[in-house]
């Protein structure tokens, strides 16, 4: 008897109708699509994106070539050479390269930096067009820091209480 009832029920396609009803409801639901280049989602102040080297307000670069970031980097993405600066003999980097292909954006370099020089900005939209562009050099990193200092400082200030 149950078999017959089940057979008749299956002929009425009730379960299929229930499934169709679900998708019909979804047809009119609010859509989650983000129109990406025009819209972006809010980003955390702790977001770890592209790297930058910061300067002090007086224009002096923060990095003192302690090489802690180079030592802590688990992906060996950072290469640093250092020498006394010609003008005043201070210890400074002559070379500060980050290989973006090796970098895993773990943020250890930023954590280890005693002078808050190397930071990870919240920039995630970037690309390379030629071989070799994956290695960013010291001037590029400093330029990044100069250009985005405002947002970098703002993000650090917001997060300062939790560090």
């Amino acid at each position: 008897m149950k078999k017959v009832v089940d057979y008749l029920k299956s002929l009425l396609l009730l379960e299929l109708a229930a499934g169709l009803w679900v998708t019909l409801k979804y047809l009119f639901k609010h859509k989650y699509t983000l129109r990406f280049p025009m819209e972006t989602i809010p980003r955390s102040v702790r977001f770890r994106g592209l790297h930058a080297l910061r300067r002090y307000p007086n224009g002096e670069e923060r990095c003192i070539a302690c090489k802690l970031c180079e030592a802590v980097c688990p992906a060996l993405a950072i290469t640093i050479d250092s020498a006394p600066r010609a003008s005043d003999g201070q210890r400074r980097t002559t070379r500060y390269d980050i290989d973006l292909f090796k970098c895993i954006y773990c943020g250890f370099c930023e954590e280890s930096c005693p002078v808050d020089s190397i930071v990870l900005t919240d920039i995630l939209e970037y690309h390379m067009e030629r071989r070799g562009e994956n290695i960013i050099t010291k001037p590029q990193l400093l330029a990044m820091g100069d250009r985005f200092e405002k947002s970098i400082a703002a993000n650090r200030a917001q997060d300062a209480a939790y560090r």
Partner: protein
Amino acid sequence: MNDALIFGWTLGKILAIAVPVIIAVAMYVWWERKVIGWMHVRIGPNKIGPFGLLQAFADVVKLLIKEVIIPTNANRFLYFAAPLLSVIPALAVWAVIPFNGGGFVLANVNAGVLYVLAMSSLGVYGIILAGWASNSRYALLGSMRSAAQMISYEICIGMALVTVLILAGSLNFTAIVEAQAGGKGLFDWFWLPLLPMFLVFYISGVAETNRLPFDVAEGESEIVAGFHVEYSGSAFALFFLAEYANMILMSFLVSILFMGGWLSPFQGWHLGWFSEPGWWWLFLKFFVFATSLLWLRATFPRYRYDQIMRLGWKVFIPISIAWIFVAGLFRFFGVVTIGH
């Protein structure tokens, strides 16, 4: 001179139907992506043209400028004949489809239903040949599945058509629509006395066009793309065109055979313009059925191969045979009024 005129006139009529069908396919693809996107809580294509309307045309251009790669051991002649064999019947079928009561039909032949059956059966050769000629295991599996499925469901479609023919008493599409005219609005159409057959025909139509949930012939998750896995570029575009043209045709057939074609759902109710028959009703019904095909695709998972066979042979065919008798009784005792 006279011959040339007739030739040109016929050619013009063919183009007047074939070109809109091809454009309709493009728009249908866009509509499919939109509807399925909405049901996935996405928004679908929206970049190319207003609301992404030109997306399908961009895809066509992309496909046409791509290279057609021929597998090494493919049978070259059959490999190229297969897409043609599937697209030509898909377009040729439109010759007998009437669009309104005023005789807007390329060929108002008396055996229109038979012609449609014959053409849709021819389409399966394109698929079988595509699978065989491309000399690939996936393609062969897909085409064998497709052949079995199409043969099974063509029987159901034939049986469902028989019930319509019993009631309408004609093989001519225009006559079949006119047999559904009457004073009771949409309750004069054949879907009511033939309700099980209407469902059988619709579901078999979905299976016949290899659409989800009956798309084992393509079965992306199992056999990559089935019969057209080795096709690229314009050859693939032809298969694509044929599939969507067949879907549009199936929507038209359901509208014409069971839903009163161009007759108004309010016929005989004296609602002025609303009760008038016209091509817009046919296109409205077509739109509803075409959209429902996309709705099915967004909703159901794929049937297992043996379930498809079971549904065709052990459910649909017995119901169809039973309903042929019921339709005969309807006709004999005059339960259903035919025509005015």
